[in-house]
């Protein structure tokens, strides 16, 4: 119901554009540093591990391929969504939960504002815009982290690394890599809003709502990753 109401409000007024921009700043710009750092070190770590594994078959030169596919298809979207869930699902749940237990949500309704229109829809739009962008940044920074390790520690020339990484990616990988964060954005925003808006029981209730939001969003991200990956790999699995 919350999802339906939030989506319906996207197409009907009033639109709180100031709130959308504010949320984009909070969710997108606010998460940028942590996403860059995690992306960089994930790419670097993966490169070290994969290079070691590939060396057994003398295929160290293909490390760019392995890193690109793993990052763009799976780890980039999932890790970015988990970071944003940890940071923003909890933030949204605690903010809305505090408003709920102090009757600010009721006051909003009494004063002529639909709380879903004012609070949920801007957060959903902002997350749907920023999470795919953050994922692209994480993918790129992760690839860069892999390049630094490949070029300096593994001994794979930079040009080889970038050429293999680029060739490894086909349009379906990019589509998968962008569809996932878009779906995860719904999870991050709506799970936070849902638990926030149903918080009861004072500050303890707000704490409980915050924890539940992070746990539920994280679990859903992993579950949905499996389902989306299954859809994109169905041809491969059925033909084998």
């Amino acid at each position: 119901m919350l999802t339906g109401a939030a989506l319906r409000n996207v197409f009907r007024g009033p639109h709180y554009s100031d709130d959308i921009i504010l949320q984009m700043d909070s969710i997108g710009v606010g998460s940028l540093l942590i996403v860059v750092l995690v992306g960089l070190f994930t790419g670097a770590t993966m490169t070290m591990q994969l290079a070691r594994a590939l060396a057994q078959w003398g295929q160290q030169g293909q490390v760019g391929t392995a890193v690109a596919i793993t990052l763009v298809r799976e780890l980039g979207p999932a890790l970015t969504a988990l970071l944003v869930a940890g940071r923003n699902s909890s933030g949204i749940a605690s903010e809305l939960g505090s408003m709920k237990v102090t009757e600010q949500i009721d006051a909003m309704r009494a004063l002529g504002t639909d709380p879903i229109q004012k609070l949920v829809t801007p957060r959903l739009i902002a997350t749907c815009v920023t999470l795919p962008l953050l994922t692209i940044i994480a993918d790129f920074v992760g690839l860069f982290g892999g390049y630094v390790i490949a070029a300096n520690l593994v001994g794979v020339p930079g040009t080889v690394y970038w050429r293999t990484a680029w060739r490894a990616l086909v349009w379906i990988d990019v589509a998968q890599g962008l569809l996932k964060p878009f779906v995860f954005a719904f999870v991050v925003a709506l799970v936070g809003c849902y638990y926030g808006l149903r918080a009861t029981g004072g500050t303890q209730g707000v704490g409980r709502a915050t924890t539940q939001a992070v746990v539920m969003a994280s679990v859903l991200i992993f579950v949905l990753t499996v389902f989306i990956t299954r859809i994109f790999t169905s041809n491969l699995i059925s033909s084998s």
Partner: protein
Amino acid sequence: MSAGEVKSVVRFEHVSVSFDGTPVLKDLSFEVPEGEARIILGAASSGKTVLLKTAIGLVRPDSGSVYLLGKDITRMSEREMFDVRSKIGMLFQESALFDSLTIEENVAYPLLNHKAIQCPAEDVERRVKEALHFVELDQTLARFPSELSGGMRRRAAIARAVVTGPPLLLYDSPTAGLDPITAHTIMTLVIKERDLTNTTTLIVTHRYQDGLLMANFRYNPDNGQLVPARENGHRPQPQLRTRFIVMREGQLVFEGTEAELEAVQDPYISKFRKQGGG
């Protein structure tokens, strides 16, 4: 539509509300004619706040009907309710000021967000200042709710409730948690609003003395104080316009005047009277 529906500002007909299967209001029926006040007394968890929230459509009844300003709001959509709510001011129990907005923004909120009010942008600042002047908080425009004391927050919330000039005001425990002097200041503002604008008023409280003030005192605009209502021929017998409702476990167990309440021997009801006398 009966004549009663036209005259009543609020009317409950056999209203029942339950949360997760637990009954909170049980077969509640009463009405509040225009210009009158109802003091709703009751122990904690007796359903007082839910009654107010049902009256403004924030809680939907499981059965029965609620009429507000002559309209049946029982099955109205949330969007339709916004128009009705624009004619109601409500003070919430903990003030419920938006903590991320300044006092000026809080008080301006209903003027800017109630579509039915359509307040011209150039009038907003003037009306906000008037409302804050009414509650004697002229110097707090740029401050945030967290920077104010509990009593000041309650006054700012009253300013937000009255800024639209609503014909019906609902107060949820306006004096709860306040020291006696601040509580008296708040009740003075409530009576001032009632007397200057002839607003219909519902007050939820657990303090009988708040009801006694409403029933027996009027606001004197000359000195800004409360004076006995029967002095100098002002508003004769206003207690006839103030009636008491006592709630117990979701049920209305008493409705009547101060004199009728004083005469009741029921231990639960007389408990509130003793509290007032003490």
